[in-house]
Structures are given as C-alpha cells and as structure tokens.
C-alpha cells in the first residue's frame, strides 16, 4: 500500500507532526495518570468505607429489635454469609479530659464478632511497630519506640475491654476514632503523634501535658429509650479508652467511637431484663403481711416476662470479595423475613432497612466518582488541543504537499486513496503518541510516590498531603482496561484531527494541485 510507504517516509522525515505526537503523549499520559490516581483513591475510599460497616447492614434504628442472636445465627448458617454481628448505633455526648463535650456516633459492638465482620483490628492505631510506615523516613513514629506503652493496647482494643487495676477486674472500654478527641496531630508522613495540651494546675499555673487518649477515661452520656421509643433517662458512665482506630475515612474517624455492646445495651435499657407484666402484680407494691404473725414479707410478682436484649443493627459480611453486595442484601432480606415470622415483637420486614456499604457511603463515593468524572471530562476537553494541533499541523502539511497530492492523482490515486494517506499518517502519529503516553503514564504512576517525595524534597511541592487525602501513599496502579481506553482515545483523537486535512486533500482538484506553486 502506497499509503503506508508514504506514512513511513513522512514519519522519518518530518519533525512537525512528531510535535503533534508529543502533544498526544502528554495528553494521554495526563488523562491516564489522573484517572489511575483518582480511581485508586476511590477504590481506597470504598475499601476503607467497608472496613467499618461490613457488606450489608440490617437496621431498625433507635428502638432496635430483639432476638438478634437468632438472626445472627440464621445469617451465619447461610452459605452466602461469612459472618454477622450485632451492633447498636446511637448518638452520645462525650466529655473529654480537657473539659470539652463532643457529640459522637456511638457504636456498641462485641469486639470478636465485630472484628469477624469488619476486620476492625486492622484499623486499630496504637500498636507496637517494628518497621516505620513508608513515608516516615526519620522514624518519628511513636509506635516504633516504647513498645511497653503499646503492649496490650491491641488486645484491649480488640476486646473493647480494659483491666481496671484498682478494682482488679475487666471493665468495658471504648475505642475512639483517631480524630474524635482532636488531640492527636496528623503528621506529614501520614501517622499521628499524641498532642500536648495546657492543663491548669491547682496552684493556678498552666502545665504542658501530653494527652494519650488510650490512657484516658471519658464520660459517656447516652439517651435511653423505652421500647416504644420514648426517652426515659440520660445514663452516664465513666468509660476508659482502650485504643483508637483509623478507618481512612475522615468522617468516620472524626465522629465515631466504638463501645462494648453490653455496656451500651445497659445504658440504653436494651439489655435483657425481667419485667412485670402490667396489671398482674398486686397493688400491694409487692409487700404482703402475714395475717397470722403480722410480719411483712416480699412476694414475687405473679407474672413477669423477660424482655429480650435488643440491638439496632446486624452487620453482615458476605463470602468472597463482594464486588456487588446487592445479591447479599437480597438474601439478607429473605433471611430477615423468615426470622420475623418466627418471633413475635420483631419489627416487620417492611420496616427494616437493609443497606449495602455502597448505599451507606453513597454520598461520599458518588462525590468522588463525580469529581473523577468531572476532572476526566475537563482533561479530555483539554486534550482537544492535541486534536486541534494534529489538525493544524496536518492542514499545513497538506498545503505543503499539494503538488505531491496532484502527482498521486495523476498516477491514478483516487480521492479516498489520497485521504487515506493522511488518515494513515494520523493513525501512526496517534499510535506512537498514545503508546508512548501510556508507557509514560505507567512509568509515572508506578513510581508516583518516589517522584512525589522527590518533588517534595527538591521543590518543596507537596500535592498529595496525607493530612488532606487521608491516605499515606498515592494510589499507584494503572488498570489495563483504563490504559486501553485512554490509548484508543489518543489514537481516535489523532485520526479525528487528521480527518479534516484528509478531506481537504481528497477534495483538491488534481489539476490545480499540479499547477500549485
């Protein structure tokens, strides 16, 4: 084919179109890098969003539902379910060591079962470290030293219990989101250092004091409700903090504390309790007088029932990777239906909310998705410059080659054949540019963290601040399908740019082309 011969010759003899190729290199690399990093960011967000809530949550808020143990058992018996755990989600007011009050989301969970569903032990922050985290070059991480300080913290955090040395017994404890208390300082290398506060002393002076949350005890206030949802009383407890967690999602780390489920149930009156059936007890307030001796004694109420313990949610983790949690949610609904049929006093299935992790993180995920889409749109739009550049360069090349086009027509080349010369050439420029651009993007994304660090050191340019983006390392993975799409996009753009000059070449009158000076 004479088109490929000419393309090959033009490629090796013309500089200008190679500039167009460079533009395509830059544009494809730009789009692919952005897409890969933002896509990776989204993936990390989704992954860390799941760590705290499992795949599917079965929820009846506030009042909750009883017999959840049976629901958990039924769920775990299902082949689609890996694990299930009960949870109470409520709001609480915490009183911090420095005197501040904060409104928080309280999640009452059992350490063990919650861990099976969410693997939350991976998020526990305070633990002995032997290796510094990737960006911590100077070994500033507290966790690298004083291992004795962290000893047992991990186990305490997982169990949501702590040894009370004074009472010599285990007591329920809390695990805080790492940003909740606001004392920890987030470092550039992505970790935390306990902060320092000025504490007023009894003699009126101020003294600097490092606040270790996991050494502190906080006051937790919860609003208890009766089974009809009426608020009964505020219950207050002193709760020691066993550890802190870092989920990777700022909202969760800022607002959530985990507390031992039993404690939360007690505080919210949701634990198992004996209750006198209304009207069955005598109106003697339980005191009977023996007519013979005149002695008073307590008589048990005649009819009592046991109010079963309740929770507001059951979290479910599916087997396998659960790319799409919706089938699992469907299955959970069926299981709940059977469960509701087997018990009285359980909310009907229609009132139960069954939400996947995607549903629960929808706003955040869709925001990042939209942002990714928007940035890609803008960059693709910017990439139109490459198309225009190809168009402009090819247009002027067609002018320059007018006489050659006339010659080709004189030896029998058809209009479409002449157009194909330029399309072929555009295709070659596009292929070279996009493949090189794709390779450049691969190279950059794979090494994006070292490159970024280098920029930080040499130019003082830190774009990906872990304090803002919440992940220590920049996502550094190029997905093949994205690469293919971007490379094809680059080729198509280049061909599009060549199209108009090609049409112009085809429309040239051969006689005018031959007479062209």
């Amino acid at each position, binding site marked *: *084919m*004479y088109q490929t*011969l*000419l393309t090959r*010759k*033009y490629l090796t*003899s013309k500089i200008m179109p190679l500039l167009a190729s460079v533009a395509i290199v830059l544009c494809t690399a730009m789009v692919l890098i952005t897409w890969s990093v933002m896509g990776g960011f989204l993936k990390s967000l989704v992954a860390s969003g799941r760590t705290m809530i499992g795949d599917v949550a079965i929820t009846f808020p506030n009042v909750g539902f009883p017999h959840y143990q049976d629901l958990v058992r039924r769920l775990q018996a299902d082949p689609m379910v890996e694990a299930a755990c009960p949870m109470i989600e409520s709001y609480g007011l915490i009183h911090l060591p420095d005197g501040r009050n904060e409104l928080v989301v309280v999640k009452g969970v059992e350490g063990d079962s919650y861990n099976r569903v969410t693997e939350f032990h991976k998020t526990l922050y305070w633990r002995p470290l032997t290796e510094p985290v990737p960006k911590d070059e100077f070994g500033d991480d507290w966790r690298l030293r004083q291992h004795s300080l962290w000893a047992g913290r991990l186990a305490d955090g997982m169990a949501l219990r702590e040894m009370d040395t004074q009472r010599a017994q285990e007591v329920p404890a809390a695990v805080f989101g790492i940003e909740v208390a606001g004392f920890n300082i987030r470092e550039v290398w992505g970790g935390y250092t306990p902060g320092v506060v000025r504490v007023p002393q009894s003699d009126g002076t101020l003294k600097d004091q490092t606040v270790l949350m996991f050494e502190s005890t906080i006051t937790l206030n919860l609003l208890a409700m009766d089974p009809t949802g009426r608020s009964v009383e505020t219950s207050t407890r002193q709760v020691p903090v066993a550890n802190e967690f870092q989920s990777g999602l700022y909202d969760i780390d800022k607002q959530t504390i985990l507390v031992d489920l039993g404690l939360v149930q007690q505080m919210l009156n949701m634990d198992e309790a004996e209750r006198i059936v209304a009207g069955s007890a005598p109106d003697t307030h339980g005191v009977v007088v023996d007519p013979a001796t005149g002695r008073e004694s307590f008589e048990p109420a005649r009819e009592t029932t046991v109010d079963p313990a309740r929770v507001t949610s059951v979290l479910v983790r599916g087997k396998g990777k659960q790319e799409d949690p919706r089938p699992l949610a469907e299955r959970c609904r069926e299981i709940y239906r059977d469960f509701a049929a087997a018990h009285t006093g359980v909310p009907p299935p229609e009132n139960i909310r069954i939400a996947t992790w995607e549903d629960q993180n929808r706003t955040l995920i869709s925001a990042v998705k939209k942002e990714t889409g928007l940035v890609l749109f803008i960059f693709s739009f910017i990439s139109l410059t490459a198309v225009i550049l190809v168009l402009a360069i090819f247009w002027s090349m067609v002018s320059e080659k007018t*006489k*050659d086009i*006339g*010659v*080709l*027509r*004189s*030896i*029998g*080349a*058809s*209009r479409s*054949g002449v157009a194909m010369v330029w399309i072929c050439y555009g295709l070659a420029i596009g292929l070279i540019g996009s493949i090189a651009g794709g390779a450049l993007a691969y190279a950059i994304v794979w090494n994006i963290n070292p490159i970024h660090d280098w920029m930080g050191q040499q130019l003082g340019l830190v774009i990906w601040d872990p304090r803002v983006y919440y992940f220590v390392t920049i996502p550094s993975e190029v997905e093949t399908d994205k690469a293919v799409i971007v490379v094809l996009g680059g080729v198509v753009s280049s061909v599009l740019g060549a199209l108009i000059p090609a049409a112009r070449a085809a429309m040239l*009158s*051969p*006689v005018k082309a*031959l*007479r062209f000076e």
Partner: protein
Amino acid sequence: MPLLIVENLQKTYRLGRVDVPVLRGASLAVEEGEFVAVLGASGSGKSTLLHLIGGLDTPDRDPERPSGITFDGRDLKAMVTRDLDRYRARDVGFVFQFYHLLPELTVIQNVLIASMVRRGPGARSAPARAAEILDAFGLASRLGHRPAQLSGGERQRVAIARALINEPRLLLADEPTGNLDRKTGNAILDALARIRERTRQTVIMVTHDPSVAARADRVVNLEDGRVVSEHSRPLRDS
C-alpha cells in the same frame, strides 16, 4: 481506429466574471504507436489539453457543440470517477516539465509508487521492471538516492520511468525538456526514442520548442484553442 480521438474539445476557465476560453474546438486523432508533438506558444492551452486527455480534468459540456475524448473506443465523458482513476493508473502515464517526484521517496520508490497505486497483476514484477527501466536510463547506481540528490536530467528520467512502469498505452509528456538545457534535453529525447524503438510506445508530447517537436512522427499546432495545422510526416516504417 485511432487509439485516441479528441473531438471539438472546449475548455473555458472562469476568472471571476470573465470567461477565459482556452480550448475552443480542438480535435486530434492519434494512432497506436504514433509519436505526436503538439506545438504551441506559452499559454496556448497545451497543458490544459494534456490534462483533459489524461482524465485529470473535464472539458466544458455544451449540448450545442458535442465534443469528446475517446480512448480505445471508450468515451471519457461516460466514465465515473473510479473509472477515470483506473484509466490514469493503467492506460496513461504523465511526464511533467518540473519532474514532480515525491521528495521523501528514493528513486526506486518514486518509480514503484505508480505500480503500488495501480495495484494489479503486474505489481509483483514491478521492482524488477523498475530496476530494468532505470538501468536502461543509466540510473542503476542511483536507486537509493533521493530526488534532491539528482540532476534535472536524471530526475526527468526517473519521472519517465515512473510514467512507464505500468506499461501504459499512452504517454503524455508536458514539455519534458522544458526545464533542461539542450544537451540534456536531447539525451532525454534519445532515451525516449530508444524506448519507442523497442515498444512502439504511443506518445503525445507538448512543447513550445519546434526543434524538440521535430523529433516526433507528426507535429500539430495549437493556436487559438484549436489544432490548426498538421505538418504530417510519413510514419516511420516499423
């Protein structure tokens, strides 16, 4: 029947509102194997005539004065674009005053591109044929050179080789020596003559130079847009 019959050809260029008639009823018949020179002053329409014969351009269509070009019994008017492309690729070969080689291609590629455009059963043997023609033109050692590395006479010989590679039945030469000195021009005409001795190639050559025209079997004059007189010489016995 003549290989080419040109009858009453009209061609008018329109410059703004002014009509510039260039050909006004030119007629010409060329037998197979004939070498015809068309002699005319500059601007008389010689190139225009060749372009029309070669199907690069179309003559005016005036229903009152029927005109036409017939090649081997085929009316060019009746040909669609694709047929005209094929006609140029197979049946005619063009040689221009300014050579018009493709500067990026080597000598051999400039010749072969015509066979690549034509695509046909002869494409396989084209490289050998091209080498043979170029060898006959004394260019055997220049096959890999670029046109810019050749002299004018050498370039024109490459251009003739390109025009002949597809073995066309009609060679159209537009002042092939117009850009060369007399000696080089004569060498080109000698080369052409040698080819004609072998192949009896039909040639129409336009020129404004009577001494160049004199090398043809027959000379016609183009004046006022018409072929006005024919100085006929007897066809050389073959």
